[in-house]
């Protein structure tokens, strides 16, 4: 049986190509970039896949706040001639044990849909948000990330630290209340945090923490570790030549971002096939 990944595109996504390529490098047997209209026309079905990618971009221009209008679309859009809600297909996909990775705008979408943090497998209630960077500006820069090895996240297994680009104007992670933050910590759902160049302590200092995220949170997963969202772009570092200092440093051929996708492929092969 084949391991299958789907990358959803349309309405302003713009990282679908490299995300699909990352899935291929990670070892998925079949990778399809699927326009959301193909899901709404019932031509493609989420259930046929194991790994759902929500790529970065500017869904609906982030006009109502990042990913907000698209969260609304996914919640209300109906699959043609069936009366079924697209969102129900998302929930079924999760129930069947599939993996979801949201990067940047995809992470914002997952949080605003309520897929993350998804306490107690309740995937429809928003408990946190991603909002405007403290700097008030969009920025493209690379960040140092420390991975929480106690986290259940299946995507980061075996990774201690990773260096990746962020490219966003709304990446500041904010929680509904202290209780949510506590729970995130106690369930080890905080997968990655911004640090200084030594990858040690989580930091609130700009520009290492590029957006002012609470507790330097850069990525979170649900309690199962199968739903994962992150602001940095793993698909932005697939080859050493993506590294900002590749002409100065000796680096392995493969970019560090591939490991996230390889973990996903490995999990699918071992658990879902």
């Amino acid at each position, binding site marked *: 049986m084949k391991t299958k990944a789907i990358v959803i595109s*349309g309405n*302003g996504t713009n990282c679908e190509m490299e995300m699909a390529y990352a899935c291929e490098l990670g070892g998925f047997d079949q990778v399809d970039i699927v326009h959301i209209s193909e899901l709404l026309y019932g031509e493609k079905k989420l259930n046929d896949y194991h790994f759902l990618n929500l790529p970065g971009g500017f869904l609906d221009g982030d*006009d*109502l706040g990042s990913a907000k209008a698209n969260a609304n679309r996914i919640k209300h859009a109906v699959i043609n001639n069936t009366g079924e809600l697209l969102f129900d297909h998302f929930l079924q996909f999760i129930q069947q044990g599939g993996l979801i990775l949201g990067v940047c705008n995809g992470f914002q979408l997952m949080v605003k849909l309520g897929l993350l943090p998804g306490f107690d497998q309740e995937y429809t209630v928003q408990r946190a948000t991603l*909002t405007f960077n403290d700097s008030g500006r*969009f920025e*493209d820069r690379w960040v140092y990330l420390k991975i929480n090895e106690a986290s259940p996240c299946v995507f980061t297994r075996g990774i201690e630290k990773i260096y990746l680009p962020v490219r966003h104007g709304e990446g500041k992670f904010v929680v509904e209340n202290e209780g949510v933050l506590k729970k995130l910590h106690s369930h080890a759902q905080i997968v990655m945090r911004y640090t200084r160049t030594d990858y040690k302590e989580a930091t609130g200092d700009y520009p290492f923490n590029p957006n002012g995220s609470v507790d330097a949170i850069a990525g979170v997963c649900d309690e199962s570790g199968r739903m994962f969202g992150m602001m940095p772009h793993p698909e932005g570092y697939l080859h050493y*030549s993506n590294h900002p200092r590749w002409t*100065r440093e000796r680096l392995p051929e493969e970019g560090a971002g591939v490991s996230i996708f390889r973990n996903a492929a490995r999990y699918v092969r071992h658990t879902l096939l």
Partner: protein
Amino acid sequence: MVHRIEVGFKPSVRDAWGEKVKGKMWDDFHCRVDRVQRIDVYTLDMVLSFDELKRIAEGPFVDPIIQHYAIDKPLARDFDWIIEIGFRPGVTDNVGRTSREALALVLGKTPQDEEKVYTSKQCIIQGDLSRKEVETISTGLLANELIERFTIVHKSEWDPSRGIDIPVPRVKENNLSGEVAEVDLNVTDEELMEISQKGVLALNLNEMKALQNYIRDETVTNKRREVGLGERLTDVEIEALAQTWSEHCKHKIFNGIIHYQDEEGTERVIESLFDTFIRASTEKIRADLPEDWCLSVFVDNAGVIAFNRDYSLVFKVETHNSPSALDPYGGALTGIVGVNRDPFGTGKGSKLIFNTDVFCFASPFYSDPLPPRLLHPKRIYEGVREGVEHGGNKSGIPTVNGSIVFDDRFLGKPLVYCGTGGIMPRMLGGKPSHTKNISPGDFIVMTGGRIGKDGIHGATFSSEELHEDSPATAVQIGDPITQKRMTDFLLHARDAHLYDCITDNGAGGLSSSVGEMAEKSGGCELHLEKAPLKYTGLKPWEILLSEAQERMTLAVSPQKINAFLALAEKMNVEATVLGTFTDSGMFHVLYDGRTVACLDMTFFHQGVPPLTMEARWKVPQHEEPHFDSPRDLTPSLQKMLARLNICSKESVIRQYDHEVQGGSVVKPLVGVCDDGPSDAAVIRPLLESMEGVVVSHGICPRYGDIDTYHMMACAIDEALRNYCAVGGNPNHVAGIDNFCWCDPIASDKNPDGEYKLAQLVRANMALYDYTTCFAVPCISGKDSMKNDYRIGDKKISIPPTVLFSVMGKVDDIRKAVTMDVKQPGDVIYMLGTTYDQLGGSEYYASLGWVGNGVPTVDGPRAKGLYQALNRAMNLELVASCHDCSDGGLGVALAESAFAGGLGVAVDLRKVPAEGIARDDTLFYSESASRFIVTVSPSNKEAFHDTMKGHTIAEIGSVVADSTFTVVGLQGTAVVKADSNELRDVWKRTLAF
């Protein structure tokens, strides 16, 4: 019924926008306030129940974690002032459009056409300001009155139960739909000119008379009667002709006849600058190429060259100067999404892979009183930056290369150059992708956005100087998401071979796109009433001429039309059949079945009479600078690094996504701290391949104050130098020329027109000489000829400016080189000879001089050097390479050192030079075709071998600490600095 939903941040949440605005109020207006907050207002012009409003608010409009809201009552409290800013009627409101789509999903029903959502924002101020100050902030910072209106309310005027009464910006309906006026051209010459001026037609008397003669021709009028027209041209025809014949579209100056007289009085008649210098050079280069890799030049929206056997590259650079002067944000945004449609509308359409942008502004610290109607340069700087940010980032196209040039003569008009590259498979559906085909009977299909009054007269407006009555409708705001949806759809349609020809709707709208496409089939029949409109009340000529954005026009065959329209519907993109292409020989336009325009295609496209112009060259004499070379160059180096044209542009660059699409190789910022200024960009458009695309540019308007011939030569050299500095292959690189000039046609108002035209001629001569020498063919280009400001007695003309952009190839990106020094102990080489050429330099400018000794380019020598350097890079002998341009050797050396986080020790006595006895001249001369290169000691010998026969010299070495030492011609240190401190100085100027 009108409802308002107001959304604001909860009091505990940090309002980054408010803080930014608060900062600017202090920085730019010296108004200190305690707090600024933002409230977003959605005005819903439709009947809704409270329950529906609540569902809309709590659904897409409000983020419950950080925001709260109020329905039909105000949210603001505890303030001194409120400023509410909203769009004027008819201005593109992207958030309003998204809101309307979102609420339709929530309610499960589509609103009626006239049921709209309008957005506005409130700026809530706590602080002790006078009304005058609040007004200044409103007009100077928050609102652009051309496209926005604002309302100011003081707390004493506030009725918390009612809030603010704001008019709903509905476009006023009128009953003029379908109305066509006729214009009698059987009038005196004076009256002809009055018709031209009143109608913003921008046609001269000769051109007006050409129209008059056309309509007087009996065979013409007889034919017209058959379709129900008479001896008068309709407004639809006049407007279409004026647009097609505009300077913007027809390039009348570049195609006219010029009598050029040089400094010795020798005369030369030039039939067409474009044919003589630009087209001719490309033809010569192509004929001499061993294998012609140019695929499509000058005939399409953008130029096309081969990338490899399977793919081709497409590139175009445009300017959007006049709109950016009036509305920097909208103008620049439209500039970038507009130029995106050029490569997208080239051949059968290409996928867009990079953006470039180059701006020319007056100093953001300009402090003299501003002439009327001009915006402060800092506002233009920030607005343009934001427009390009939104246009590029939201379209998912990396902004990989650019620069900002400062000169206070750009106060009258900023220059905003936007470029876009694309890639496409060389064959599509069995046909070369760079070709277009149309058969009579194919449908005319418009897709993307709808038509409004936006941008009407854009083409004619940009063919004029900026004056008192410059029309506000000439400004538009782009909508990257509507365009992204459309391009997603069209790439699907392209790959399914559902259309045969595509072009964009830019200047001149349908008139231009359909008019140009109809040349391929030999005519068209266009039904304007079928065009989807944003609102009713447009006259036929307005529909035809509207420059509303995000639209492409296609030719779709009858066999494919159903599949095409079905795919559009599925992908939620509007596509409408507007008529058919024919072979009737006529540009035939109808409205509700009635002919409103019927023009002979030949007259329409070729009827414009050529301009005849005079050009007279005179060598300008500037006072020769006289001052002593300073003993210590350290202070001048610091001063140079802080100069606007040299300092770091990181604050701008970081706000552009330069990595999306995953192929970033050489980024705009490189080095140990990711802050060194890259010479050029390298990207990998095909992620599975190691072949790369290299993009760079050259621009040096200061040299034009001495001689535009050398300005052009230096711009071409600079572009190539930058290109070669990162490893670009000098045998596979194409150029794009973008001329921005001040009015070169002599008249009473423009007494030095002949000189400016001579400057234009000389730049073109250099273009021919140097592109042929370097074998860099121009594949596309553009000119913008009326970059002047004139209101009352005040006239400001830009300095003649050419942007020369290049795009080419690097065979293996793993061999690309960056500009930062790498290792202590590496040998520093100077490549190329330094001459006493400080004329027009940054150094002279820093001291208030222009001088006369402008840099000149020795083409054959430079070409040999670039080839040798490329061989050295292919052998991986070069550790770092940085071109010497603004600020010469001194600045390049400092940049390379601090980008590498190391120091250098250099001896000026070793620098290859001719005729230089002064340290400052040697250090800051801007002689062309030079590089600073570092080489590992182990590669020294091989490097020497490879560079044999070319001017290179070992001038020092990289040192482990950050000391920056330069020994002068007398053998004593002339610079002792710390490279980290130099970096700090360099980064400070524009760090806002």
